[in-house]
């Protein structure tokens, strides 16, 4: 009985909106990423007051662009894809954590409430230079 209540509670919590995992469904030709907008011009775009969209490419063995700077309190929606193998896209100390699969676009949103340097790293093994694959997100106070 306790178990049933527990399952219902977890089930309901999982359904509540802010817990929906990144499940973006959008395909892209992995052999033509460099020619396909918006990934032909990767980078940060401002879409409103403290609102951004960041198009970052994950490829062996780097993120492009590797560093972005935003003001504190910004809401950023990240879009990423890979032209080669599977990568990870993880910003430490946040819940931005997604797999980057060639042929698909992944997306996640985060509000950066604290200033500082966030580490963006690849947490999906991608080859011999996997541990060199990182970037930073500078959040200015």
């Amino acid at each position, binding site marked *: 009985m306790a*178990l049933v209540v*527990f*399952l219902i509670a*977890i*089930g309901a*919590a*999982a*359904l509540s909106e*802010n*817990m*929906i*995992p*990144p*499940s*973006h*469904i*959008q*395909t*892209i*030709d*992995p*052999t033509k990423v460099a020619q396909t907008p918006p990934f032909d011009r990767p980078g940060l775009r401002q879409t409103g007051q403290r609102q951004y969209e960041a198009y970052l490419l994950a490829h*062996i063995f780097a993120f492009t662009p590797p560093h972005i700077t935003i003001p504190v309190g910004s809401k950023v929606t990240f879009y990423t894809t890979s032209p*080669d*193998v*599977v990568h*990870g896209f*993880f910003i*430490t*100390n946040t*819940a*931005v*954590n*997604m*797999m980057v*699969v*060639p*042929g*698909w*676009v*992944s*997306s996640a949103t985060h509000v950066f409430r604290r200033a500082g*340097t*966030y*580490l963006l*790293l*690849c*947490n*999906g*093994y*991608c*080859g*011999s*230079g*996997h*541990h060199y694959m*990182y970037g*930073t997100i500078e959040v200015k106070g």
Partner: protein
Amino acid sequence: MEAHVRRENRLVLAHLYVATLALMLGAVFGLLQSLSRARWVSMPSSFDYYRMLTAHGVLMAIVFTTFFIVGLATLLTYRAIPRDRSLALGWSAFWLMTLGTLAAAATILSGNASVLYTFYAPLKAHPAFYLGTTVLVVGTWLVLIDILANAVWFWRTQPGRRLPLVVHGSACTFVMWFIATIGVAIEMLFFLIPWSLGWTPTVNVMMTRMLFWYFGHPLVYFWIMGAYLIWYNIIPLHYGGKIFSDALTRVAFLLLLILSTPVGIHHQFLEPGIAAGWKWLHTMNTYGVVVPSIMTAFVIFASFEMAAQRKGVKGFWATIRSLPWTNPAFTGPALGMILFIFGGFGGIVNASYSMDAIVHNTMWIVGHFHITVGGPVALTFVGTAYWLIPRLTGRRLFAPKLALAQTYTWFVGMAIMSTAMHWAGLLGSPRRTDDVTYFGVQAAAAWMPHMRAAAIGGSLLFLSILMFAAVAFGTLFTARDETQVIEVAQVEEHAALTPAYLDRIGTWATVAVVLAVLAYVGPMHELLEAHVYGAPGMRTW
């Protein structure tokens, strides 16, 4: 020993010693990994970290566990159904598994398959890696046929008698394994092998991932079922206990049979291309498969308690103290159970969406599976080897004190290593990464103390595995002693009668297949419907 028993023992020993060799080699790599991550060792480019990590994953997660479980299930089935049988099928399985393993291992160690044990496309390994692993899996299917053939022989020749409990458990384990490995077999035969041979130019990456995890999660339950075979049927012998209930034991195995497969997508929470609803469905199913484990905890403690009561011991701590803490065949599984309690909590965390986003692909996950498979499962197997090997070789156990110390060393080493890994993971340290200093970025500096603690725990674990190897191989040379017998625990006299439908393995297997199909037909259909671009293969190492 009768001649046919001696012949059967040789087959089982062959499996146990391949498992031991895999564990030893895997341990060398495990040690180097933990030292490399602590920056106390730096792997040369001629034998790099990821080659070694692929070998560690394959040797530990697939080879060690599978050979041990096959040896165990074969032994339990053969002893429960004694007859003068042909071992042709058993040896064919052993040789297929061994040849497959050798092909895969040679490909990995020569640097042609640094794709890790999950071999995610479009990383493209040499075809011998995919072919070798497939042959290993096909070998295990012969084991299923062997177990079922023995069960059928039993039903035919002894109508009206219940299928022995250990045969029921072994059959459930291998039917579940068969249903699960169909996924990886399809992935290999229809996707990866033709693509690695150059017959198809590109591969559907998301489909291969879904097929992999269709297999990858039940793989975990395969290990657990192997450990449960021992927890239910063998360890009561060590404390003078009995099996609490015949019916509950059968129910636990049947639940694992039907619930292990429709859960795999919980490994794919953070992937694009799979609708959130499917992720939710698989998460709910994952909580369902916790039920047989909670049942097992209850049944095992009840068995401890009833044994203690017969000796006039009462109360929780007195019951615990009354157990044989100096018998390594008991302390291995029992210390493993203690680790499993922590592993279980961690597992519930992993399966929740919001937590998974924080710990996915971090060291937390590595900490989690070392405290589940590397703890309860491996320590149960290692401890049980101290009981099995002397009985199979007809010799005395070599250095019993060393064996006892080995189980405690493992427990301490694993507790240290796993705790440090969990902690580093919460701080964001990624898994499957050689050097986690990121050129001195500040956020990464906080992980280093934990990486060093993990390396200390890992060194203790390595030492423990050396001790095990010394005992396992030492026992080949000790004095003969054929008085030790292999038996399984009896059921408590008051155990409730077992309903006959619990033995209808065919019916339960059908239920398992239906549930697996229901869980996967939707997400797979969506993947096939979507306009998917294939990805060409790549060798990035």
